């Protein structure tokens, strides 16, 4: 097993990696990886969703355009979806969306989607480690300026 315990490469600082995981399989896979103490880089923050079908490609667009360096989506393997068809739709929508990134000037390697089942703890460690290395090799993503008057509001106040 490759040595995955290395410090994050490059600046030694964590990069902003966001993960959208389906509750039934991939979130369970991440839990299994934890139970198995499979050490991984810490950059990835995981958002739990009921299904990969719940992932609207616009979540990825918003995350990448508003400051993230990499986005990872993971759901159940096709045919294993708890809701039978969720991941089939996700597969199509995410694959189509992936083709928009280069046109926008965003490196397509900053977004990956994959299928990990609840039992594949070791495989989840592989996925997170490889994905984190991939993003570190690309370095921090270029930033777009927010709206001028929005800048001062950046104190973390959410306009709820």
């Amino acid at each position, binding site marked *: 097993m490759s040595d995955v*315990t290395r*410090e994050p490469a490059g600046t030694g600082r*964590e990069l*902003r990696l*966001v993960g959208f995981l389906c*509750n039934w399989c991939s*979130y*369970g896979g*991440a*839990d299994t*990886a*934890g*139970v198995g*103490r*499979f*050490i*991984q*880089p*810490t950059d990835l*923050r*995981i*958002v*739990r*969703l*009921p*299904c990969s*079908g*719940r*992932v*609207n490609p616009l*979540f990825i667009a*918003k*995350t990448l355009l*508003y*400051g*993230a360096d990499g986005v990872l989506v993971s759901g159940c393997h096709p045919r294993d979806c*708890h*809701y*039978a*068809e*969720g991941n089939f*739709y996700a597969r199509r*929508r995410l694959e189509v969306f992936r083709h928009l990134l280069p046109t926008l000037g965003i490196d397509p390697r900053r977004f990956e989607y994959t299928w990990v089942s609840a039992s594949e703890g070791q495989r989840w*460690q592989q996925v997170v480690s490889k994905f984190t290395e991939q993003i570190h090799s690309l370095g921090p993503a270029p*930033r777009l300026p927010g709206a001028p008057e929005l800048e001062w509001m*950046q104190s*973390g*106040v*959410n306009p*709820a």
Partner: protein
Amino acid sequence: MRIGVFICHCGSNIAATVDVKKVAEAAWGMNDVVYSTDSMYTCSEPGQQAIEEAIREHKLHGVVVASCSPRMHEPTFRRTVERAGLNRYMFEMANIREHVSWIGRDKALNTLKATELVRMAVEKLRLNRVLTPKKIPATRKVLVIGGGVAGIQASLDCADAGLEVVLVEREPSIGGKMSKLDKTFPTVDCSSCILGPRMVDVAQHERITLYAYSEIDSVSGYVGNFEVNIRKKASYVDWEKCTGCGACTEKCPSRKTFDRFNEGLGATTAINIPFPQAIPKKATITAGACRQFQGKKCGVCAKFCPTGAINHEQKDEIVTVKVGAIVAATGYDLTDWTVYGEYGAGRYPDVITSLQYERMLSASGPYGGHIKRPSNGEEPKSIVFIQCVGSRDPSIGRPYCSGFCCMYTAKQAIMTKDHIPDSRSYVFYMDIRSPGKGYDEFTRRAQEEYGAQYVRGRVSQVYPRGDKMVVRGADTLLGLPVEVEADLVVLAVGGEASRDAPKLAEKLRISYDGFGFFMEGHPKLKPVETNTAGVFLAGSCQGLKDIPSSVSQGSAAAAKVMALLSRDMLESDPQTALVDIKRCIGCSKCVKVCPFGAIREQDLRGQIKAEVLEAVCQGCGLCNATCPQGAIQLSHATDNQILAEVEALLCQM
């Protein structure tokens, strides 16, 4: 909003590599957080009490617990906050054990990550709304489709549990494939002796309404409130008057009608009662074969019917019933073996299917229980059984093993020896599959005690030579091609999904696999449930299986129905989609993608709007991700709640 944050040590599991004090400290600075602490074992009794007290003391509106995976303790903590008077959905968890402390060695990075995960949970909680489970009335009645052994078992169990049962059977009599069998393995006891009494129980049970010779026309509604239209097909005999005396069957002039029950072995009359132990024991006219329907004047049966039950003008009739649950037990069909040109493709009379041979063995069969060669009526001395016909054969799209053919062939080999002591049976096989209790011993007996000659090898061709049938195959154990001259060839034909299973599946809105077998909820954990709430499966319609398994699935499905309908009100999980009718423009994209048919179009003052059936919605959120204007939102996982978690991370930059 007043939020309380509880950071768990989990003994040392978290505290060892996460500075829990620092995280609790940081939580104070988060939006709407009015109380933040850490505790050794939050999920323990004292830990939960601490939360309850904090809720009351600090008048909290919501709680965030940072500890292990929500897949483990979310239900626990939801009950905790509920006991303290909060709605259970005003609660969020941050997974700082499996996703942080156990997988990261750098304490500083772990602590930073834990803090950010807590911030995400807080930001989501700020947008959570109170959700209460809905109560929907349930009709305590169950529809069982298919009167085979599985359907009979399910009906009897449900009826015995006090539920009203509606049993619908497509053929004129219940009994399914089992009623066509002479004996059953592995005990070689007579099929109608063990099935007959069950069929009589169904007929006599006061809580079971039987619709034989009927089919499902349409199913609407949802769990607890299905509305089913049953089409009672015209049998041209008034079953109220018919006593089943059979006078009409003796006098009917058209004697060449294809006998469906006896698999076309013998012929029968246009008006017939399928078999002596039929339930209901009523006559049915096969319209295609009856002269009256071919324009020729007949009416012989009407003349001889003592109770005047014959009525050639009878029409199909639709009966509507309301049920709370449905059990599909529609069984299977034999594979169409005539695709095999090498076995004669149906051209040779002495090459028959195992089910035809079963009818030949049966005393109530067309040959009265005597084994005879269909070509010349003589008693066969050499009988060859060919295994795996239409099973384990990807070239015709049947790659699976049907599971029961090895066993019934062993039984038929034993029966053949009983009927014709000086006969010689050969069985061409690839592998013998006899996994059940007493199964392998049974096939062993067929070989050792009853002298069946098992030849390991495939048959390449069956062809007539003189009046014999030559079976050419291989014997892989000897490594030689072999030829056997047979008087009779019995094909152990495998099974496939019944031809119109997909049509029924679409009516029930359940999914089916590539072969047409209904899809179970989970292959290991939910074998008799489907992804459609309220619809259950039993028997071979879910996958080919023998009688013991079909019966146990019948009982299993009945148990699931009893659990569902045990209370007269169903409680539905409130994490379902909700439509904002202002924003909905009625493009019905959501209706198209919903895997469960849980969204339907409603006409609101002339405008089409989407409407979610809470009872049917499983909360996958596909509709939410599909709706361009975000008019449909999945409660507890709305766009804003997810965006709140994302923005909680990004605003740090």
